[in-house]
């Protein structure tokens, strides 16, 4: 097997003296969807932010064969990583179109135009609203714009932090469908989710985090049938749904 696209080894992240992530190892294979599930406060968002370089961390981060743990955030973007953060961090006072353009800040004009067409094909809603201010979009549209903006950078690895957060169930389904389609187009995806069931259905491989540590990992298809997972994260009483 090839070396994974992203390899995290013994990663520690601390807020002051409190360690929020303690010694995490994770690998993302090229072209795969890897999900990290866990309860609120397990350190999932912290983990993603540290991988992206938003937060300082200790430990190994290798991306596309290179150690990047000392590389600043913006250089990681240049290298092909992209994070869609939990709070989206859109440019609310700017038009949808300008948000997308800035997503391709590091790309050439031609690439930007081309990628924007692809994004509009994937998210027709954004095309309809291209002149609207990002701040006026609905929750689902904001998530789509955040993903679209990230895609404008043409990332090799797309990291999604709770893409389903605050969205109506039907829109969640749309978003997850798009995530699947992105994998099929060759983008590797690291997905952090509280909606464990949807995430496990979509992912190839899964990690479970508790209190800053990875406590379980395995093939997503096996995890979804694992008794402990069902009881803790999928709600034991809904067993019948799984069939």
């Amino acid at each position, binding site marked *: 097997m090839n070396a994974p696209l992203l390899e995290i080894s013994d990663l520690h992240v601390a807020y002051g003296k409190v360690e929020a992530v303690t010694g995490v190892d994770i690998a993302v294979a090229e072209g795969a969807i890897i999900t990290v599930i866990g309860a609120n406060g397990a350190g999932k968002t912290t983990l993603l932010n540290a991988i992206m370089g938003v937060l300082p961390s200790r430990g190994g981060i290798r991306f596309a064969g290179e150690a990047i743990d*000392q590389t600043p955030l913006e250089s990681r*973007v240049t290298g092909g990583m992209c994070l869609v*953060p939990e709070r989206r961090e859109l*440019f609310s006072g*700017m038009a949808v179109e*300008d948000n997308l*353009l800035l997503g391709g*800040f590091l790309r050439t004009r031609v690439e930007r135009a081309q990628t924007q067409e692809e994004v509009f094909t994937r998210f027709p809603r954004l095309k309809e609203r291209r002149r609207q201010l990002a701040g006026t979009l609905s929750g689902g549209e904001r998530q789509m714009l955040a993903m679209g903006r990230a895609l404008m950078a043409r990332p090799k690895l797309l990291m999604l932090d709770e893409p389903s957060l605050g969205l109506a169930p039907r829109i969640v389904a749309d978003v997850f469908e798009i995530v699947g389609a992105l994998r099929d187009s060759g983008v590797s995806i690291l997905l952090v989710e509280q909606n464990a069931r949807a995430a496990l259905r979509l992912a190839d491989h899964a990690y479970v985090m508790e209190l800053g540590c990875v406590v379980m990992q395995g093939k997503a298809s096996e995890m979804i049938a694992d008794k402990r997972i069902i009881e803790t994260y999928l709600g034991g009483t809904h067993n019948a749904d799984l069939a």
Partner: protein
Amino acid sequence: MDTTILLFLLQDGLTNGAIYALLGLALVLVFAVTRVIFVPQGEFVAYGALTLATFDAGRAPGTAWLGLAFGLAATASELSSERRRVGLRRLLQSLASTTAVPLLAAAAAFIVAPMRPPSWISVLLTLAIIVPMGPNLYRIAFRPLADGSVLTLFIASIGVHFAMTGLGLVFFGAEGVRARPLSDLVFSVGPIPVTGQTLFVYAATILAMTALALFFGRALLGKALIATAMNRLGARLVGVRTEMSGRLAFALAALIGALSGVLIAPMTTIYYDTGFLIGLKGFIAAIIGALASYPVTALAALAVGIIESLASFFASNFKEAIVFTLIIPVLLWLSLAHGPADAEEGH
């Protein structure tokens, strides 16, 4: 008072107001992008005016050396902040971005100054000397504090102001100077004589504002600056470096300051410490625009200019007091309308 005097005062007020507008816009821009309340904005005006006047006197200005020193200090600050070992290539790359322009400008200044160049060459040289000081100052004084609070940055800003005023005294002395006008043209419109210099002020102001509007409305780089101002993390996530935005904002502020200095140098006597007061009036306009709105700032600046000019006629002793008192009702209104201000903007 008759109409002629009123028209005089209005013309005078508009001319000064146009300069205040430029400075106010620079203050809003720098604050939005870097959260720095840019007290030394006025020093760039004084440096611009005094540098131009020195060229007029046929000497090379000391600011040429100062610009070089700033460049070297910026490189030192940049490289010392890097954790990795610095190679020769990185050193040259850093010097190219901080010191190359000041070096060329200084060399040109020393060669050209004794030849008494035409005004426009002096103006270009002045800009080439002063503008790089902006981004280099950002690198030296503000970048190391980029994660600090607005108050910390403000204190640093005041420090830079005092340092620059002191350096101004060193390089230009305590004497006030006036530069040659860019044009000797004078004609009258009705009862009012209009000088070519005031026309330059209006033209330059309109041109600069149009250029800024186009830059922010059309150019990707301009949008990246706005993006940094709106959401710093969001901008970093798409690969816009905070450092790049900061340098660009400071370069624009220095350009606007130096340009204002060049424009007013032939109209008023400028001393090494005159800049502060001029910058402060731009600051009042920026406050009226809540450090956020460009159009409100520009209009407020024109109003400040006109009020100042009327005040200097009716109550010249209280001229500055009247202008600066303007800020009180505005602050009251802003704090009543928006509630207690949150010093740290949160995203």
